[in-house]
């Protein structure tokens, strides 16, 4: 019983953290039709920045600074690596994303010297508590709540502000939105800013739970979050969140079973199955090609 609860708890908190990353994927994909492979690495870099900044700054200053820097990083990546390729074939942009991911990982290896870095303890959420006999951290409980709050705020932003409307328009039809005078680049930048911000928050939660950061720390959570986004229906924010919780829970359950070595394989098998059976995911909209 206690075991089952601990598995559920870990699944829920994982799911929440994946959700925050998955939103970044799903928003970018919705607008640019680009799998932003570097997103997971932005998440990792956010973690590393926290490690380095807390060494010289108090936590209260470091956290906001990390979020600002993460947002800046997302913005710069978009401007430097994706914007010049706006007219290029989709494959080129994706390759550029892979290149950025490669660069961030190598940079992290260079800076950390490949040594695992310990994430600082954050008072309040790092504390260990016991729920129904299962020990866990406060962050586990905080995560789903925070995710809900952020997602609600984000849906408000998307449905009730001008920039949100612009985002929906661009996602629906890139060219037409452009013709209608929507400043595409600004909208895309906002998307990256929001996505990176959420990744930054996600990294604080994630690394408070799993404290060691290595240059590859971002790649696997990133891929899983992407799978979650696809699962929920790419482009749909509620879809990404639901997908993330499903992926987080199922990962946790598989790890708890005797088939734990296939936990990654299972995630990807799930992805392939959903893509083949229902390519639009749980909440995605159907798009037909015109001849």
């Amino acid at each position, binding site marked *: 019983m206690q075991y089952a609860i601990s598995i559920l708890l870990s699944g829920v908190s994982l799911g929440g953290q994946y959700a925050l990353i998955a939103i970044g994927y799903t928003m970018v994909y919705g607008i640019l039709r680009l799998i932003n492979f570097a997103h997971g690495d932005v998440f990792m870099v956010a973690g590393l920045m926290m490690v380095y900044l807390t060494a010289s700054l108090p936590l209260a200053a470091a956290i906001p600074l990390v979020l600002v820097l993460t947002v800046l990083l997302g913005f710069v990546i978009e401007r430097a690596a994706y914007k010049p390729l706006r007219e290029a074939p989709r*494959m080129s942009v994706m390759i*550029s994303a892979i*290149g950025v991911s490669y660069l961030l990982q190598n940079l992290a290896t*260079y800076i950390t010297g490949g040594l695992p870095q310990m994430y600082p303890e954050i008072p309040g959420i790092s504390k260990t508590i016991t729920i129904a006999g299962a020990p866990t951290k406060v962050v586990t409980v905080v995560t789903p709540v925070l995710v809900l709050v952020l997602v609600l705020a984000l849906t408000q932003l998307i449905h009730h502000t001008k920039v949100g409307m612009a985002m929906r328009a661009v996602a629906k039809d890139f060219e037409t939105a452009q013709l209608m005078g929507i400043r595409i680049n600004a909208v895309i930048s906002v998307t990256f800013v929001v996505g990176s911000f959420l990744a930054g928050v996600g990294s604080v939660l994630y690394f408070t739970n799993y404290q060691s950061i290595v240059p590859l720390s971002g790649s696997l959570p990133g891929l899983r979050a992407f799978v979650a986004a696809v699962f929920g229906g790419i482009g749909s924010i509620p879809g990404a969140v639901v997908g993330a919780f499903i992926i987080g829970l199922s990962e946790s359950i598989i790890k708890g079973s005797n088939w734990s070595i296939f936990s990654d394989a299972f995630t990807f098998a799930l*992805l392939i199955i959903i*893509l083949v059976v229902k390519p639009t995911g749980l909440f995605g909209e159907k798009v037909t090609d015109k001849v």
Partner: protein
Amino acid sequence: MKQTSKKSTWMTLLFVAALLAVVVILENVLDPNKNIMVFTALKKGAVYALVAVSMNLLNGFTGLFSLGQAGFMLLGAYTYAIMTIPAAQRDAVYYIYNGSAINFSLPELFGGGPVGLVLGVIAALILGGCVAAVVAWLIGLPVLRLKSDYLAIATLGFGEIIRAVFQWDKLGPVTNGANALKSFPTFSNFNIQNAGGETVLRLSTFMAFLLAGVCIAVIVLLINSTYGRAFKAIRDDEVAAEAMGINLSRHKRLAFVISSFFAGVGGGMFAMFANQAQAKTFTTAMTYEILLIVVIGGIGSVSGSCIAAFLYVAASEWWLRFLDAETFIGGVKVPLLRNGFRMVVFSVVIMIVVLFFRKGIMGDKELPDRFNRRRKEGAAK
């Protein structure tokens, strides 16, 4: 038109033959230890060239963005290794599992000795390709219906699944679980030794070039055949291709299977190069490396992929190595140089290529095209 194309075919053949001859001569004339870097880089370059060309067949010529190359290489590498480890060595290699489930080795089945070695190695490589091809056929059924980036992510996931399966200890008696497979024939086994055990003729680099060369030649022949033209039609415009009677699913699967076949052969050759086969080597990072080679060489150019493979290997693992070492010039430490800096510089270079030289080295042209054009321009003047 016909004449010139025939001529350029001959020129290419001649060029390749000359290249092979140069490789043999160099390998036997140069001091093998002082210049081992050259030959190691050449061998790895040859292997990567083949894999990059096979990826280009899919990504560049058929327009299918697949990221499963490392997975297919893994299949080829394991098949090759399992088929060629000498029976006597099996207990030592599979020491954790108290011996292997498979107790024959192809070179020995073919009678051992030099003939058995050559036949066995070639048969095992082809078998490796076939295993990769069969798996590609199976996963191609569902996956190839997906569009561009979904296909990419699905094949990427497939690579991860394959890796997990091969690392599964229940399959240990066949795959050796997490342990590396080793002791199988490598390129060095093709160096001819005299009775005293001295090497009289070095053919290891030559073998790598020959095998990769033959495979690449077959791919080039395919690309220039009616099927290759159909692939290009699919890449350029799927709807038009289908309207002109090209069966999309059949041709896509064909390209996928053939590409995987050669990735499998390339994987077998990679095992020969790396002296061991271990699932954890064949990561997504490896696929990315190969993809970057394809991009640097030019998507849709076979010769570009070949040139880029050698450049990439040489640059990343040889020429830029000095960036990793802390260096003093006149007693002053050069800033930034330290372990890991090489890869940072390298990835910046890659980003610059991706962003500003999007066509890569060759664009979608081939080497002979370039010469032909120059000749034409010369004639025009």
